[in-house]
């Protein structure tokens, strides 16, 4: 017995929405999905007419759907935005070079300009060369810190007003859980915001913040969007992996779990007495940082000094030495050399 679409009551339903439990046909699903993203954009006033918006594009499902939906809504509702695809090339052979091919096809399919910034041009290191030096243990720290800045720097080169990224509801819920589990109060407070940062860095927003991963994947599948879906060859990212499968297990029992976790994160209030890091700027590169030197500069210094563990963990005491390019003591050096993998 085919189930009928609960919205148009004419066509056969093709999916059950995890968020609402409604059964919808493809056309009604496309419509409500796009309208909900539109609602997120309008109610949080994410963009203003005339702005240039960089869409962080990795070639994966989320950013491909984001680029497609942004293009559709910009035309349907005449947002008056100038959209650009912005990609980061981390320099991972067999992974990023393949996914960048997808982004290049998206550029043609959506008729949007594309800018690629590479770790090599920004930092003088690719992830391949970093992994050769640091091994497979802390490489994701380097990649994550470098990517965040790379997107900003690419955006600055293009004089972009805002960046939007494909983070979805599942991603946000995962991040809430991870920050909670790590006791990272500052991030826990920030991570649910739909848009961030107007001081210093280029403002960022997440138009898909309330979109379930299941719906994003089905949107891409039913629309036959061209996306790339291979795991990064260097990334086990075990901690996020556990948070992710835990959430997926919860979702299979109660689909609203994802949104429930986001709501919990949004409504947490932090006691006044809790000390928050004060945001300043990196003395070397000018990027926002709560330390004198930003994380990327410390990591880079470690790579260039042949002391790759320098930026792993907390080493606030060394900040002054690093800033003045002073040598470390023999004992300090020993600590940050790579001994075991």
């Amino acid at each position, binding site marked *: 017995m085919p189930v009928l679409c609960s919205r148009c009551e004419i066509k056969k*339903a093709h999916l059950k929405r995890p968020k609402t439990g409604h059964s919808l046909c493809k056309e009604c699903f496309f419509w409500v999905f796009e309208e909900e993203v539109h609602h997120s954009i309008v109610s949080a006033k994410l963009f203003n007419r005339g702005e240039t918006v960089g869409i962080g594009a990795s070639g994966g499902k989320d950013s491909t759907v984001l680029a497609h939906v942004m293009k559709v809504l910009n035309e349907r509702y005449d947002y008056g935005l100038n959209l650009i695809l912005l990609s980061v090339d981390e320099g991972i052979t067999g992974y990023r070079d393949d996914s960048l091919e997808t982004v290049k096809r998206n550029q043609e399919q959506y008729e949007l300009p594309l800018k690629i910034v590479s770790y090599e041009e920004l930092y003088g290191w690719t992830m391949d060369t970093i992994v050769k030096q640091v091994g497979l243990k802390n490489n994701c720290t380097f990649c994550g810190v470098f990517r965040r800045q790379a997107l900003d720097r690419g955006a600055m080169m293009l004089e972009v007003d805002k960046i939007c990224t494909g983070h979805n509801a599942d991603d946000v819920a995962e991040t809430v859980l991870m920050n909670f589990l790590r006791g990272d109060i500052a991030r826990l407070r920030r991570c649910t915001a739909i848009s961030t940062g107007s001081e210093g860095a280029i403002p960022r927003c997440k138009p898909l913040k309330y979109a379930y991963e299941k719906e994003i*994947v089905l949107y891409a599948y039913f629309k036959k969007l061209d996306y790339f879906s291979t795991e990064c060859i260097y990334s086990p990212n075990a901690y996020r992996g556990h948070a992710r499968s835990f959430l997926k297990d919860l979702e299979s029992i109660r689909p609203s779990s994802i949104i429930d976790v986001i709501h919990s994160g949004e409504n947490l209030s932090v006691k006044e007495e809790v000390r928050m890091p004060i945001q300043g700027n990196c003395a070397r590169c000018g990027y926002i940082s709560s330390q004198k030197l930003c994380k990327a500069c410390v990591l880079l210094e470690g790579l260039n000094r042949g002391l790759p563990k320098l930026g792993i963990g907390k080493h606030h005491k060394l900040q002054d030495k690093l800033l003045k390019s002073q040598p470390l003591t023999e004992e300090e050096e020993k600590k940050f050399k790579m001994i075991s993998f």
Partner: protein
Amino acid sequence: MKMAAPISIHLEFGGGAELLFDGVKTHHVTLPSQSEPWDVKQLLEWIKANLLKERPELFIQGTTVRPGILVLINDADWELMGELDYKLQDQDNIVFISTLHGG
């Protein structure tokens, strides 16, 4: 005893799930005849025994697919089709899409 005839079905793995099947996305398979009609639950056991190349726990958890893998039966969400109890028909198209891979 009446036997159900063997059935041919199309299987498709995507979104990264194909990596557990030697990177092969589409498979045309014939399920042997048995006394009861095939259902999705039995299909999963058959896939595990005959097609799955590595790390079965990334595809099957207990008697169902791992949460985070979407299943479509003839282009419709399996949640509308009875999930594990759906009775397979000849020429059915079953798609498994992983949502667990990077975005």
